[in-house]
């Protein structure tokens, strides 16, 4: 079963690769057709509703949205749409296989599949992929961003499989507690959603430059992206959804630390970087609420938060030794 889990991981990585290639094909093939279906649809379909968890989910644009495609092609071609559909199907398949990797690993280990760094990265990336599919389902216009989601998934899973892989071992006694389920699962879930939130933030920066007329390399990637304002709302929605869960996860960790190590907060490297990430995302929320801060700066803060989460996930486990040394990586 453990071997089967590793094989499934290879299948998942390949599927993400296929999804990424199809997204790239959709991006490349789009824009050569004469059909202007997009233009014919009412404007509201191009605009997202942000602010999850909004129960309504219907569109309400404060200002008319920038036509996706803008100054260049009027709409996607048929082959581009086909490639896009295949890409989404590949993503769904990849996410399902990814879930299978986790489930088989958990069955083989007879415990929740997040006991060391390899498994933790698997969980976080799965949450990112599943979260992306939820976002895609509710707001189909963000499909072009799937290219970058697939790319991120691919890279992280590749690192996990090649560098972080460890065979299954039971939990060390320090992890043998019900807090293991509560703290690690909420950290993984909120990390996954926060990481997912960095994709629209990056796209927002590229799109904002594109809308200002820049046509050099990174900005042209945003040619077919939704407007910067809607990307900004998507970023905020994902971050605002995950931030309270992340706060709860850190607090749960502190409660566990009090019973395991005797002190709720000891400035262990992982605790310190969790604090840094929390402060940066709090800064993001404050910056977004301050009108005098430019929206581009707000997006950069979200990306900075992403960087601190990566540092917390990889850097702390590999470079620093502390009480959190359950990575299994020597």
């Amino acid at each position: 079963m453990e071997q089967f889990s590793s094989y499934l991981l290879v299948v998942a990585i390949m599927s993400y690769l296929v999804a990424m290639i199809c997204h790239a094909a959709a991006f490349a093939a789009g824009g050569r057709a004469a059909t202007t279906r997009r233009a014919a649809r009412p404007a509201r379909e191009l605009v997202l509703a942000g602010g999850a968890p909004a129960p309504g989910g219907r569109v309400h644009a404060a200002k008319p949205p920038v036509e996706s495609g803008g100054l260049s092609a009027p709409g996607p071609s048929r082959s581009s749409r086909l490639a896009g559909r295949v890409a989404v199907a590949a993503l769904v398949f990849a996410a399902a296989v990814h879930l299978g990797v986790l489930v088989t690993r958990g069955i083989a280990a007879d415990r929740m599949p997040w006991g060391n760094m390899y498994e933790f990265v698997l969980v976080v990336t799965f949450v990112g992929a599943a979260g992306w599919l939820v976002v895609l389902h509710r707001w189909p216009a963000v499909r072009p961003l799937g290219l970058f989601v697939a790319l991120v998934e691919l890279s992280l899973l590749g690192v996990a499989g090649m560098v972080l892989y460890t065979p299954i071992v039971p939990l060390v006694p320090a992890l043998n507690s019900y807090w293991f389920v509560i703290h690690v699962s909420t950290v993984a879930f909120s990390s996954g959603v926060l990481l997912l939130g960095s994709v629209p933030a990056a796209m927002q920066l590229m799109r904002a430059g594109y809308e200002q007329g820049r046509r050099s390399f990174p900005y042209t990637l945003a040619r077919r992206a939704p407007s910067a304002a809607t990307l900004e709302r998507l970023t905020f929605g994902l971050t605002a959804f995950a931030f309270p869960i992340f706060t709860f996860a850190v607090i749960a960790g502190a409660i566990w630390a009090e019973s395991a190590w005797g002190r709720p907060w000891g400035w262990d490297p992982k605790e310190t970087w969790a604090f840094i990430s929390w402060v940066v995302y709090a800064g993001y929320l404050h910056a977004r609420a301050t009108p005098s801060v430019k929206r581009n700066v707000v997006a950069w803060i979200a990306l900075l938060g992403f960087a601190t989460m990566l540092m917390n996930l990889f850097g702390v486990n590999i470079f620093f030794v502390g009480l959190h040394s359950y990575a299994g990586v020597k």
Partner: protein
Amino acid sequence: MTAVDDRTAPPVPPERRANPALAMIRNSWRQLTSMRTALVLLFLLAIAAIPGSVLPQRSVSAEDVAGYFAAHPTLAPVLDRLGAFDVFASFWFSAIYLLLFVSLVGCILPRLRDHVRAVRAAPPAAPRRLDRLPQHALIADAGTAELSAVADLLRRRRWRVSVRGEAVAAEKGYLKEAGNLLFHLALIAMLVGVGLGSWYGWHGNRLLIAGKDSGFCDTLEQYAESGLGPRVDPADLPPFCLQLTDFRATYLESGQPESFGATVTVDEAGRAPRSADFSVNAPLRLDGASVHLLGHGYAPVIRYTDRAGRTQTTVAPFLSQDEMLTSEGVAAFPDVNADPKSGKPDPDLQVAFQGLYLPTAPDSPPYVRSQHPAEEAPALMLFAYRGNLGMEAGIPGSVFELDQRQIRTGRLKPVGDKLLRPGEKWRLDDSTTVEFLGTRPYIRLSVRHDPGSGIMLASAGFLVTGLMLSLTGRRRRVWFRLVPQPGGVAPTDGSSLMEAGGLPRTDYPGFADEFRGLVAAATGQAGAQEGTD
């Protein structure tokens, strides 16, 4: 004659120059409590925490700090002066978070006052031009809809309603601001909890070897390492005594630990002695302190028979060097080989053994690393030394190491080494014998008391609640107004024209749907309205 508008300019009051000092204070305060300053301080806080993770910290691991000093002899003292090894207690980190909290308090208190005022005030009156609002609907032929019915409907849906003459005003979503305020106040409460804990809290660490003669009582002197908060007096430590009766550890074949469990006899003041179990995630909670299991190891029992035939037994805890519990330590016998007639010990005939204990020794030499943490094939490698141990000089040293200076200067000479299995005896060159009797387990424990942790927990709960309310709450207002019929005819025939308007105070994309639903419910039937967005 035309009326001349003869208005003179109102009298200009004499110019008053503002007090520059007061103005500066007021402006500085405004700057400090502004959002931009809060943002800058937040990022400074995040940046200031980075050296606390990159450099070793005294509160986390004092040995790593000492190692850093050894590795960077010129840089380390400079960093130490800057507080780099104690970042989170340093003056600059404290300055940043204290400024941040001052900014927070200065911003939150006026907002609290404004929010209380807003909650107590009635929802504002309807604007004259409802069709200028983001949501607007004209309800023609509203049927039996009446303002009071509309007001009741809104009240049922938990809106705050006020009826003024011809218009109903309703507001909802106060919890958003309330949640925001709760979150920020909870942060302050958290800080108070942290402060309480550091002032009135204490901790003490030590080894506890199994056995009746190795118990300890909770007094300051009995801890190997301790820290008391500034307001804690050593007499405040709760009086209890612990004795380790049993320690169980199970391991996998690979050597990875599977479970730990310690059984102690607890003797608390005012209660009968009782036995208690505790383990890594289940600390022993006593009255006024809690005992946490941090680690464990082995303490070999060594018996030495000196030249006069007197025996001494010592239980020496050895420190674990790796995951397989390869342990090193010293068994010292400073009082042996005393002159049988005068009873005075000879300072140059002291004996000590530097030892390497392997719970599972390999089958063949070299015997340097244990292969498994459990005692499957225990072996103790002893290096005997005789001479002056250097304990009389009063210079503090480690109990796990011999004084290297004495060895280097030849005052303490090595006199042989041997590998002993449990029960074996070794006869030294001067016919004295040393015997390895076996081992006793020891645990490393931490006894702690943190009076602020309850406050921290409660404020953490309020923090998360406030955060969720603040991020999901939506403030919005709706108004319903009876529109007077043209010509001033009162609507007496049962048909009335009502106008409705809605304003979301925050970014709320679902408001259109909610407004439509309200209007439909107010008319009591769908399709009797024409709506524009």
